[in-house]
């Protein structure tokens, strides 16, 4: 296992797990898919490929943040502002 990258991968996993708590389809649903995605790529050794996958994971994290923001914004807009 590429050692410094391992710490980054674990950090990414924890971050995504934390973000997944609010997932609309349920945190369990999200957690199962997160574990599946990470274990599928368990044996990858090439540092470049690992970096690419970490970048993809960070992209997913950004997408989740955007999803949560939009949901909240739309809910507030619907509740408090006349359409």
């Amino acid at each position, binding site marked *: 296992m590429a050692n410094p990258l391992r710490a980054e991968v674990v950090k990414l996993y924890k971050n995504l797990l934390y973000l997944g708590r609010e997932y609309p389809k349920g945190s369990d649903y999200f957690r199962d898919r997160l574990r599946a995605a990470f274990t599928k790529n368990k044996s990858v050794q090439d540092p470049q490929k690992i970096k690419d996958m970490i970048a993809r994971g960070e992209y997913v994290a950004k997408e989740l*943040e955007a999803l*949560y923001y939009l949901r*909240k914004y739309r809910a507030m807009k619907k509740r408090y502002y006349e359409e």
Partner: protein
Amino acid sequence: MSGRVLVGVKRVIDYAVKIRVKPDHSGVVTDGVKHSMNPFCEIAVEEAVKLKEKKLIKEVVAVSCGPQQVQETIRTALAMGADRGIHVEVSGKDYDNMGPLQVSKIMAALAKKEEAQLVILGKQAIDDDCNQTGQMTAALLDWPQGTFASEVTLEGDKVKVVREIDGGLETIKINTPAVVTADLRLNTPRYATLPNIMKAKKKKIANVKPADLGVDMASRVEVLRVDEPPQRQAGMKVETVEDLVGKLKEAGRI
């Protein structure tokens, strides 16, 4: 000017949770229900942090009133970028009866004590929908207020606030110190990610009691009863205009 901004944050039932009324109609079920920071308070914190990042102010202090659990909400504000927190301990009956009047007295006392340049609050809480705390705080402090702010610009010792009002947008210029309440389109709050929450654990949260600030928590309002909104009646489809007129006459509408 001290360059200090006070931000009030409220712990409310999460916006996505389905609210249930207690069987005895005395209130809403809160035990075991997911709570989070009021969405408008998130926008208020974001605005304060943005001002600090632009180096227009020096320190952001997050304040929340309530029992032990509000510390989570203060921690979220710290994770978003606030420098330190103040937890005003209010629990039991005092917390159940706590409303905008008591909170604004506390905010006013803290604003004076901390020599705040600006107090930023959310425009209203999604649980009580009072939309009063900001206005009352400004009145108690005799400070100008820029409410329903969709844009805030610091210009020297004045603040330019663009307000969202029924007719459109109103731009006002007020002196500091001032109270601003955040509206939905003021900014896009950042998410308090796990690394930021970890970093925020080092930041301090001070404990204060309302009595220390000389605030009387007695409520002048008594909640008599809480009910669910009436169930929405199903609509009816009609084939022709005559049917529609007939049905309306039946219902006594015309």
